[in-house]
């Protein structure tokens, strides 16, 4: 016979479990209702989904090349060889290089501007609250508009080509990096700052000699991280005519050149992975310098 204490404990455990199950069921029901509403709004019905999924499978299957093992390393004329699949590798490689340079230049421009804007946008260095709020809000404004929307607008102003894409990515980068930079500055040690100010340095000198040496390694690693993001962004701004591999990808997708789509996507994936790896190494080096 179990003691009443044990029975009581068992009883309250069961009661708590019941309450938790009821809560889980409640959340689940809310989720289901929300999902049903979303499905209705987005016109995702079971029937359309059932009709769509096989076509997705079919489409992505067509992107795969027909390679033949015995002809794999034959020349560009042999159907089924790697060279036949990548027959325009030279122009694609050049476009990918252009894409990476668009991203690099846009990152450099955006980071330079963010560097200038981040010190007044840091709460501990801004001369007063009004300046701080002004710079913070400006950065937020730059950040909240996606780069592809900037690209859509700038293509009208600067014409089709990489120039519009560079400015578009740079504008978004200013906002994104400026905020991160300002947060790094807010975490900086202020004693060197007090030292320079006490020795008679003005605001700009104090920023240069007391703050910049502390924050530079962190800035560098954020810039590299942003560069990785911008490389991905630069692969698609060509969809709206702003340069890079995206324009070519848009064209081959529109014309249904299936095997070329697969080839370009594979090249993009490899390039992005390679740049990520290299940048990761550099970031490790920058972090080492900061320590």
């Amino acid at each position, binding site marked *: 016979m179990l003691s009443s204490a044990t029975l009581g404990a068992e009883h309250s455990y069961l009661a708590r479990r019941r309450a938790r199950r009821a809560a889980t069921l409640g959340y689940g029901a809310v989720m289901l209702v929300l*999902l049903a509403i979303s499905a209705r709004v987005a016109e995702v019905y079971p029937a359309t989904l059932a009709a769509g999924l096989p076509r997705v499978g079919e489409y992505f299957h067509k992107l795969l090349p027909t390679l033949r093992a015995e002809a794999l390393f034959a020349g560009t004329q042999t159907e089924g060889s790697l060279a036949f699949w990548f027959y325009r590798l030279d122009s694609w490689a050049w476009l990918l290089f252009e894409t990476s340079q668009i991203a690099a230049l846009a990152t450099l421009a955006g980071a330079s501007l963010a560097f200038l804007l981040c010190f007044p946008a840091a709460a501990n260095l801004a001369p007063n609250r009004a300046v701080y709020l002004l710079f913070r809000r400006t950065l937020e404004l730059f950040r909240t508009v996606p780069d592809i929307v900037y690209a859509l*607008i700038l293509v009208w102003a600067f014409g089709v080509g990489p*120039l519009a894409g560079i400015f578009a990515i740079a504008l978004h980068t200013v906002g994104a990096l400026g905020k991160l930079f300002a947060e790094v500055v807010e975490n900086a040690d202020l004693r060197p700052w007090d030292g320079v100010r006490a020795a008679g340095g003005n605001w700009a000198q104090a920023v240069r000699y007391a703050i910049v040496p502390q924050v530079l390694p962190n800035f560098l690693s954020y810039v590299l991280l942003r560069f990785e993001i911008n490389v991905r962004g630069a692969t698609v701004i060509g969809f709206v005519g702003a340069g890079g591999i995206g324009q070519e990808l848009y064209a081959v*997708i529109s014309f249904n050149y299936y095997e070329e789509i697969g080839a370009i996507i594979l090249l993009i994936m490899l*390039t992005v992975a390679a740049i*990520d790896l290299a940048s990761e190494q550099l970031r490790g080096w920058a972090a080492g310098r900061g320590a």
Partner: protein
Amino acid sequence: MSATAQDIARDIAELRARMPRAFGPSPRGRAARVLGWALFAAWLGALLWWFDFSPTRIWNGLSGLFVILRQMIPPSPGEHWDAILKGLAESVAMAFLGSTIAVLVAFPLGFLGANNVVINTLAHFSIRRVFDGFRGMDQLIWALAFVRAVGLGPLAGVMAIAAAETAVLAKLFAEAIENADNRQAEAVTAVGGGRLLGIRFGLLPQVFPVMLAQYLYQIESNTRSASILGVVGAGGIGLQIAERIKVRYWDEVLFIILLILVMVAIIDTLSAMVRRRLIGG
């Protein structure tokens, strides 16, 4: 006075001779620095020339941009309020559905990619590299492909979000599972539970809050990206923006951009509320 100044100058010269590195970089270091900046300048100059950054082009572009900005103000909703609101609702719905599907698919994949669940090193390495590869593909590329596969409309957008974010979430889930304390799962196995029960009662309770937080974050970030997928025809408010930019209704463009900012802010606030309630903090 001048004698002291001379003394100081002599001292400085003597110190400089004794410890040259305290007064600046060595000649070799200085040469390396100059060379570095020269290479940088050459790279920059080459790019500016390649991408045609001529002053006239920039000036023309800026004046064109100024005209556009002047036409944007004041923002106006135009005559198609209903289409704009429908587009916004569609974007939110696409983000929600896409994130939910991505979480459901990434959940088992995350366990497959964690090295404390799948112990085979080769399998672990190749699964993770596949996740990495798919992460390299931007959502818009997926969207364009899905539009060609299932036609214009939000279904393509939902699929694009789900496909792109599955790889991201699978990697994050795998990392969360790897960081979990394995001893709890071992305890479950030790009292007689199988491998599956060990995962259910040993690992899952530890990683569930992380997964929930990631899910909420995905909804926020996908609300942003769902607002641009329409540019390639995958539904949502992006289609409305792209159409108005094509016909240069700049005042309506600015109005929609502002509405998107409001929508994103609302979703962020809601998600923060849910996060506080479910996870705390």
